[in-house]
């Protein structure tokens, strides 16, 4: 057990070191979601968005939940990229030839992605706060948001890692990634509530796990516990199923690649 922690600690620190040496990229990953989506998009659609439809005091406060979950989505889906590069340049092979527990590399990646994502979510909520978006459920609500975000993130990161282990080239990986992420956003309640969507889109959006996540995060920010709790309960169940499926698929892909 002590060995296990030593391995995971060292591997996680490697991800942290890499990030800290890619200062430029770090700035972008941190700043991009809040800058582009929350500040630009939020203010841009301030007057175009109908508050009767969004059921929110202003568009930014409506969008905040969407941006939080979009960040979780993007970080999760990109979570396997570094493993992909490790696989391609042989570093993964070097790690796996050492007597580490087979799951250590993967766990370190989960740990890292979840930590970075949580920090980003906190920054986004902080920026939203500056635009007068005050989470209705307080600090406990923020903690709940983080928890839901992590549950969603675990599944997404598992998908991403499964892809990293299965694809033949990293070109394939990025094509699939690009193909997945935008429809996930547009076919969800991130930017527009389902009721305001064309029928076929809102129909598809109902099957998008991201919609469930946003529908739980949004009342935590906008309304309060009484409205949020049923959604939170629901999303926990949906996420347990989602994570189980993704982890199962991820484990299979990992065994195929490493067996």
């Amino acid at each position: 057990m002590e060995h296990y922690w030593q391995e995971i600690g060292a591997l996680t620190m490697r991800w942290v070191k890499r990030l800290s040496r890619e200062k430029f990229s770090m700035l972008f990953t941190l700043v991009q979601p809040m800058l582009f989506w929350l500040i630009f998009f939020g203010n841009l659609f301030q007057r175009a968005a109908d508050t009767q439809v969004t059921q929110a005091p202003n568009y930014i406060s409506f969008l905040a939940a969407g941006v939080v979950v979009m960040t979780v989505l993007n970080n999760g889906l990109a979570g396997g990229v570094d493993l992909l590069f490790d696989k391609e340049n042989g570093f993964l092979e070097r790690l796996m030839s050492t007597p580490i527990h087979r799951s250590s590399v993967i766990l370190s990646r989960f740990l890292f992605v979840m930590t970075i994502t949580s920090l980003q979510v906190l920054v986004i909520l902080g920026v939203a706060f500056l635009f007068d978006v005050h989470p209705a459920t307080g600090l406990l609500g923020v903690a709940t948001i983080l928890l839901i975000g992590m549950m969603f993130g675990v599944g997404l990161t598992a998908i991403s890692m499964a892809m990293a282990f299965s694809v033949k080239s990293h070109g394939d990986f990025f094509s699939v990634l690009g193909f997945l992420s935008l429809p996930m956003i547009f076919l969800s309640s991130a930017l527009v509530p389902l009721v305001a969507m064309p029928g076929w889109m809102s129909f598809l959006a109902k099957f998008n796990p991201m919609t469930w996540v946003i529908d739980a995060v949004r009342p935590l920010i906008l309304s309060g516990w009484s409205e949020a709790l049923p959604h939170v309960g629901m999303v926990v169940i949906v996420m347990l199923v989602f994570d189980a499926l993704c982890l199962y698929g991820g484990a299979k892909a990992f065994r195929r690649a490493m067996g």
Partner: protein
Amino acid sequence: MDRAIAIDVKQLCKSYERHKAVDDISFQVYAGEIFGLLGPNGAGKSTTLRTLITLLHPTSGSAAVFGHDTVREADTVRMLIGYVPQERAIDRFLTGREHLELLGALYHLSKTEAAKRIDELLTLVELNAHADRPAKTYSGGMKRKLDIACGLLPNPKILFLDEPTLGLDVQSRLRIWEYVRMLKTRGLTVVMTTNYLDEADQLCDRLAIIDGGKIKTLGSPAELKIALGGDIVSLTLKETDRTAGLEAVLKDQPAITSVRTTDKGLDIRVESPEKALPAILDSANRLGCNIEFIQYNRPRLDDVFIAHTGRAITESVPETGST
């Protein structure tokens, strides 16, 4: 042979989809020797090596390292080996020292033990001065040295080197050969792959020539050359009319294995040049053959390779079916 066996490979096969990358190979590596797998691109060298280091499961057959099965006792095997992959498996963002520290933790060394070994290794591969620079600033040779230091960090009993000098300049190659010989004197067993004939010839105690997933021949470089039938003495004669007569006389000499007529004279395979040369000159004198030129060749490993695979190592492998 009563030498300790470090690696025992039995009827090992590894297939990808329907393509057999390694096709029923068996061999043993003795403790303390430098063993080479020599073969052209795609021969199955890396696949064999990856099986030995527990990264691949054999499709059939088995491999054991110091008696431990690479599948069932993978963790024990991993504790005994160091691995230097074919690709420069380097994280550009980490410094040389950080690479070694990471591995130290993965081999469960304590901080002090790791620090001690890291200092030793950095000195050994002469990377001390560059240890705290990110690896992306390293030259190809420096990256290779770091690779080797990483392979040695666990203080392994066996070091696996996959094409250790691929793409290096002559000086760096010689350096790495020196390291490998030095490791041998420290008691390490070294298993390496290469597709350089001179490397296999000069460095390996024994080698297996592998082609198309099969072992074509195995032995020490000297044995393999001798097995071809000894050294070759090539005679160029002034007049070719008495060639046949000379050939007939030489054929019966005890030190000579075979004689072949060429367009300029004769190619004579000899067991020991010390005995054969005087006999050849003597016979030529008696028959009154004037020798214009005499050349003496030891068979090179190239000849061994051609004899066993039917082509030179530089010629590309004929494509077989799937990719």
